[in-house]
């Protein structure tokens, strides 16, 4: 568009015979071109602001509902995912978990504390992310502090290979392993058929890298969260043989 960078002159020289524009009035002035584009941009902008504002409440609600359902699925794996539960968010600040007040600062991490019917803390749903085979894997897992076990697990987003790596969310045995998995001393990814310890996860055949990525993400996340959770809830954190809940 800026083939001829020059100040607007009353008679712009046209290199070719003026082809009649849609208005049929020969070459339109640059001012008219700028004006047309400006108007088009302005109208498009107004339209999009309207669409954005119109759909925003619904989109925010969808996001919140999707997160809520995921939290319920990892903390109450056997329950109805649409059932209402008391869930509060907790922010990781200076090695402790605090109830957030007001908007979060950038980069602050949030976990979700679920309560059982009697109002007792049941466990934390913790989002975690890390490098997978192709792109970041985003997880949400449920953690029960009293037994130091992961009690539920869900892949929120991934770009692993369809049919191979995506078994980390489709393979029933693999996903089921996270229904009761000890995180001490740390979760270990072992070859298929060789897992006999409480903290061992058998890798999925054909999806070893993705399986190991999941385990690594969980270990890193636990290193970050577990001390803070124990610090906050007052459970002795140096207790390698915490009794598992039946």
């Amino acid at each position, binding site marked *: *568009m800026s083939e001829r960078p020059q100040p607007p002159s009353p008679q712009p020289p046209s290199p070719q015979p003026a082809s009649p524009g849609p208005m049929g009035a020969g070459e339109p002035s640059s001012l008219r071109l700028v004006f*047309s584009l400006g108007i088009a941009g302005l109208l*498009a902008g107004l339209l999009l602001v309207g*669409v954005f504002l119109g759909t925003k409440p619904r989109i925010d609600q*969808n*996001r919140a509902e999707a997160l809520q359902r995921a939290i319920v699925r990892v903390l109450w794996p056997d329950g109805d995912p649409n059932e209402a539960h008391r869930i509060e968010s907790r922010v990781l600040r200076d090695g402790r978990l605090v109830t957030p007040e007001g908007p979060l600062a950038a980069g602050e991490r949030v976990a979700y504390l679920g309560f059982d019917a009697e109002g007792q803390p049941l466990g934390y749903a913790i989002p975690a992310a890390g490098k997978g085979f192709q792109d970041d894997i985003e997880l949400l897992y449920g953690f029960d502090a009293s037994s130091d076990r992961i009690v539920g697990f869900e892949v929120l987003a991934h770009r692993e290979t*369809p049919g191979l790596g995506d078994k980390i969310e489709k393979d029933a045995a693999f996903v089921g392993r996270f229904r009761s998995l000890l995180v001490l001393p740390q979760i270990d990814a072992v070859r298929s058929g060789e897992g006999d310890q409480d903290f061992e996860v058998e890798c999925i055949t054909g999806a070893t890298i993705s399986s190991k990525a999941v385990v690594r993400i969980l270990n890193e996340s636990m290193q970050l969260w577990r001390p803070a959770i124990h610090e906050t809830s007052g459970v002795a954190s140096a207790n390698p043989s915490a009794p598992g809940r039946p």
Partner: protein
Amino acid sequence: MANAIEPDEGRSRAAQELLKGIWRENPVFIAVLGLCPAMAVTNSLLNGIVMGLATMFVLMGSSLLVSMLRGVIPKQVRISVFIIIIASFVTTVDFVLQAIAYEVHKEIGAFIALIVVNCLILGRQEAFASKHPMKLALADAVGMSLGFALALTMIGGIREILGNGSLLGVPLLGDSFEPWVIMILPPGGFLTLGLLLTIFAWFKARAKARAALETKELSHV
């Protein structure tokens, strides 16, 4: 006289413009346009259908608007204005899809924004909508987008059945079927499209041969 038959002729012309996009000038199978979305999102039938519908909305909206404004848009900046119009519709689709089909958007959301650069849409604005009245432009847009949606549905359906053993997420082929994983990976898109193009080309060649044969026989009679 020409005026007397105009409405009738106009209607048949509109029908013609509508039908040509579905088969004779199918954007994917004949014109081989818009292949990026046709390959990228068609690993399942649902994704193909949603992408087809999203493209349909964008194409119809843009064609109508471009045709309406064809006397106003200066020729020199028409492409920029077309892109602004198309991008506005695409962004609208993006937001609306997030609002009404959040799960689907999570899967193909990255490709929705890319509808802007689908050469099929800009191509129809430049080649047709900017030169024809609104009725014909709409007919052309509906036909072309139906043809595009049809192509995406076919590719998506074939790839999902073979690559996942299911259709619309419903298992079809039972447990004994070993999914052809390659079909839902990118190479599967190329394979499926290549096969479908071959079939279309074969039909076309056969129709042509038959037509030629008939003219020959006729000339003998």
